[in-house]
C-alpha cells in the first residue's frame, strides 16, 4: 500500500514566558493514500497542532515528516508554501472565506496563486462548482450564503487544486445538523473519488463517516483503529 503521510517521533512544544506545553509527544503516524481518517480527543490534546504540521502551516521541533515520500519537516517557508499549493487542501470550522470575494473568486484564489491561465481557471472553477452543486451561487458573497453553502464553497476551494489530501479542522463545527450531514457526505464523495481526507472532530457522529479513528490525549496517540462498519447516510 502507498503511504501518503508518514510521521515518525514528532515532537512539538510551545513555549510561553511562563508555561511549556507539549502539544505533540513522540507522535508517529502513517496514512495511506485514499484513507479517510478522523482525529478525535479533548481540547488541548494536540489535534490542531497535528493538523497544522501535516498541513505545513507549522513545523515539528524534531522527528520526521514524509509527505508522498519526501521529507518536508524541515523545509523553509517558501518550499512549504510551494508543496502546500500542490498537495494539500484545507477546510476550516469557521469556513475562512474572504468576505470581499464572491464564491467564484474565493474558489479561484488557489489557482491564481498556482499561476494558472484565466481560461484554465474558468474551466476548473466551473467544473468544481458544478461538482459541489454551488455553481448557481457563484456570484454571491459569503455573507449571502447559508452556513452549509459557505462550507461547500470552502470545500470547493480546498479541492480545486486536486490536492492529494484534504485537511479538515472541525468542518461541521459551525453547522446545524442537516447541513452537517450534507458536508460529511461531500467529504465522503471526495474520498470515494480518491482524495485522502484527514479530519479533526469532536463529533462521534461525524467520525463515524471515516475509515479510521485516531484518538489523542496530551500529545500522544491513545488509540488508532480502523472502523469495520461504515455508517450509512
Amino acid at each position, binding site marked *: 500500500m502507498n503511504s501518503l503521510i508518514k510521521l515518525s517521533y514528532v515532537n512539538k512544544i510551545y513555549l510561553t514566558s511562563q508555561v511549556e506545553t507539549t502539544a505533540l509527544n513522540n507522535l508517529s503516524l502513517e496514512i495511506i493514500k485514499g484513507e479517510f481518517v478522523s482525529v478525535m480527543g479533548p481540547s488541548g490534546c494536540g489535534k*490542531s497542532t497535528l493538523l497544522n504540521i501535516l498541513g505545513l*502551516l*507549522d513545523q515539528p521541533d524534531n522527528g520526521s515528516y514524509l509527505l508522498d515520500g519526501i521529507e518536508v519537516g524541515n523545509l523553509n517557508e517558501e518550499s512549504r508554501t510551494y508543496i502546500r499549493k500542490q498537495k494539500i487542501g484545507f477546510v476550516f470550522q469557521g469556513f475562512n472565506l*474572504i*468576505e470581499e*470575494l464572491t464564491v467564484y473568486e474565493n474558489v479561484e*484564489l488557489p489557482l491564481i*496563486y498556482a499561476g494558472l491561465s484565466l481560461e484554465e481557471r474558468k474551466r476548473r472553477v466551473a467544473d468544481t462548482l458544478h461538482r459541489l452543486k454551488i455553481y448557481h451561487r457563484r456570484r454571491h458573497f459569503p455573507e449571502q450564503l447559508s452556513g452549509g453553502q459557505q462550507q461547500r464553497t470552502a470545500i470547493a476551494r480546498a479541492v480545486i487544486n486536486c490536492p492529494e489530501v484534504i485537511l479538515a479542522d472541525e468542518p461541521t463545527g459551525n453547522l446545524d445538523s442537516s447541513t452537517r450531514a450534507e458536508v460529511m457526505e461531500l467529504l465522503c464523495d471526495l474520498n470515494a473519488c480518491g482524495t485522502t481526507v484527514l479530519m479533526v472532530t469532536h463529533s462521534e457522529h461525524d467520525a463515524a463517516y471515516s475509515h479510521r479513528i485516531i484518538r489523542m490525549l496530551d500529545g500522544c496517540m491513545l488509540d488508532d483503529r480502523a472502523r469495520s462498519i461504515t455508517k450509512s447516510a
Partner: protein
Amino acid sequence: MLKNYLKTMYRSFLNNKTFSLLNIAGLAIGIACAGFIFLWVEDELNYNSFFADGENIYSVKDNQTYDGTTFTFDATPGPLAPAMQQEIPGIQSVSRSSWPLNLTFSLGDKALSEQGRYVDSSFTSIFHLKIIRGSLHGVFSELHSVVISRKLAENFFGRKDPVGQTLKVDNKNDFIIRAVFEDLPTNVTVPFNWLASYHLFEGKNSWLRQWNSNGVWTFVKLQPHTDLTAINKKLYSFIQTKNKEAVAKIFLFPLKKWRLYNQFVNGREAGGRIRYVELFTTIAWIILLIACINFMNLATARSEKRAREVGVRKVMGARKKMLVIQFISESITIALVAAFVSIGLMYLLMPSFNLLIGKTLSVSIENTSHLFSLLLIALICGVLAGSYPAFYLSSFNPVMVLKAQKMNTGLGAVFIRKGLVILQFSISLILIISTILIYEQISYARQRDLGYAKDKLVYVELNGNMHKSYYPIRDEMIKTGLVENATISSSSILQFGSNTGGYSWPGKDPSKQVLITVESITPDYIPTMGIHIKKGRNFYNNIPADSNNVIINRAFEKIIGKKDAVGIKLVNGGSARTVIGVVDDFVYNNMYATPSPMIMFSDTSYANYLTIRISKNADVKQTLSKLGSIIRANNPGYPVEFKFVEEQFEQLFKTETLVGRLAGIFSALAILISCFGLFGLAGYTAERRTKEIGIRKVLGASIPALARLLSVDFLKLVAISCLIAFPVAWWYMYKWLQDYQYRITIQWWIFLASGIICLLIAMVTVSFQAIKTALADPAKSLRTE
C-alpha cells in the same frame, strides 16, 4: 492576480467607507498641501531661469568694511565695467546698468509710469531678450532710443507696429522706439519694461564717471568654463588699482543665487529666502508624513479585520512577498486616488493660494514635470504608508489568525501606532507654536514705536518739474487746510539708500571707518515726519544758512561718544560740517534692527520724494484728490501716484507675513489630518471594545464614565506629544528669533495655550466616537460576539 487584488481592495473600500474616506481625504489634503508648496518652491527655484546661459551670468557685488563690520552692496563705480572688459581675461560681456528707474511715457493724453533701466549695449548679450519687433542694432548708442516690452507697446499702440514711433519721456524728450521685446516672466530678479542708453543716464549723473562713487550695477557674462575663483582673485583688489583709497572689494555673484542666497553677513553669504524654501519643503514632506501615518495607523488598527484574509491567502499558497506586494499596491492605488482628488482640490483652491502668496502660479497635469511629480508623490506616499502595514499584516501566522475567533493585536504594533500618533501631534503642536510665535514677532515689530508717526503720511516720487515747483506746490497744499506739512528728501522715510564711510570727528580712531547713512532733507522734514529733536535745533528755513551744518541721530551721537554732540565738527574729504542738532533714533531700512547712524543735510538738490502729512481730521480720499490736482497743475503731463507710508511699511513684512500665514494654514491642516487619523483610530478602538463597554454598562457604568474610559488613552498620547513638542518648538523658534535684533521673548503661555488647543481638538475628535459607543444598546453590543 492584480485584478484579484484590486477587486478585494475595491470591495473592502466599500465595506469600510468611513475608514477609506478618512484615508483618502487625509492623503488628498496632504498631497494638495505638498503640491501647493512644491509649486511655490518650483517658482522660487526657477527664478531667472528665463535667461539663457544663466550659469555664466554674474553681478558684481562689493564688500565694504567699516569699523570691523563688512557690508555688501550692489552699487559699483561707473568706470568698472569697461575696465574689467579690457583687463580681466575670461569675460565675454560686461554691462553697466542704472538702478531700476521709473520713467513716465506719454502719447497724446495717455501717460504711464514704467520701471526700466539705462544699460550698455552689451546688456542684451548678457540677458538675451526675445525681440518680437524691430532690431537692437545701434539702439544703445543713440541717446533717445528705447526698447520696450510687449505690454508697454500694446498699452500705447495696441496691435500696431510701434517701431519707429515716438513716446514722450518725462514730458521732455521724444524717444524713438527701436524694438519690442517679449514680456519678461514675473520670476526674474531684474524686471524691466524698457531699456535705454546708459550714456544718457551717465550724462545726467556725471559723478558716475568717477572711481570713488558707487552708483551703478555691473553685470558680467563669463566665457564658458572660466575659472571663477581665479577671476574673483583678480577682482579682489581691482578697484584699488584704480583708486587707492577705495574701500570696496569686488567679487562676482552668480545669477542662480540672486533670488535665494542674497543675504550677506559680514561680507559672507548668509542664505536668504532659501531658508523659507527649505523650511516649506520640509513642511510639505512633514504633512505628507502625517497623512501617511494616518494610513499606517488605520491599516494596522483594522488588522483584525484583515488577518483572516491574510491567513486564508497564505494557506491557499500566497507567499509573504505576494502579500507584501498586494498591500503595497493597495496603498499605492489609494494614494493615486488621493492624488487625483488632490488635483481637483488644487484647481479649486489655486486662486485663493495665489491671492495668499501674491503670485499667479498654476498647476497643469499637461505639464509633464507636474504630472510626473504628482505621480512620484503618490508613489512615495503609497510605499511609505503601505510598507509598514504590508510587512506587519503579511507576517501574521496563519495558524494563529485562522484558529482565533478574535485576534489579539501585537503589543509591538500598538506601541508603534501610539508612537506614530504622538509623532503626528508633536509635529502639529510644533507648527501651532511656531505659527503663534511668528505672528507675535510680526505684530511686535509692527507695533514698534518707529520714532515718527506713520499714519496719514503719504509720499510721491518727484518727476518732471515737481522738484522746481516744490515750494509753490507745498504752499498751495498747506493753504487747502488739508495738509499739516510737506517736505522733499532724497529717500522715502522707510528706505534710505546712500551711505558713506568717509566721516571723521575729534577723538575718532583714524584706523576705523564707520558707515553712516546720508540723507538730504528740507527744514520741513523733521516736523512733517514727527521726528523728535533731542538736542540743538532744526535747520533754518533759509537753506543756504545751514549749508555747513548737519543734524545727526542718537545712534551716531553714541558712536561719536560725546554726551552732547552739538557743535562737533564732522569732516569728510576736506569739508567740515557742524552738528547743530541731534534727533531721537527712528527706525528705517530694517524694521527688526536697531537704527544705524545717520547724518542729515539741508539740501534740496538731491530730492527724489515729496512726503506729505495729511491733517488729522481731513478726509484722506478727498485730500488726495485735491493734492493730485495741485501737483498736476504745477507739473502737467505726469501721472501722480501716492503711496501711504503705512502701506509701504506693511510691505516690509511681506515675507514674514506670508511665512506666518502659510505656517498657520499648514499647521491647521496638519492637525486636521492628524484628527482624521485619531477619529479613525478611536472608531476602531471603540469597535474592538464594544463587548467590554456592554459588560461595563450592564454592571452599571455611566455614559460619561464610559466616554472618559474610551477617550483617556488618546488624550494621554496628546499630552505626551506636548512634552516632546514644547522643547523642540522652543529651540527652533529661539534660533529663528535670533535673526531679529528687535524680537519678542518666548512666553510660556503660548505653549500652554497650544497644548490646550490641541488637547481640546483631540478631545472633540475622540469623544464623538466614545459617546457613540457608550450610548449603544448593551444588549446589542453583547450579541455582537
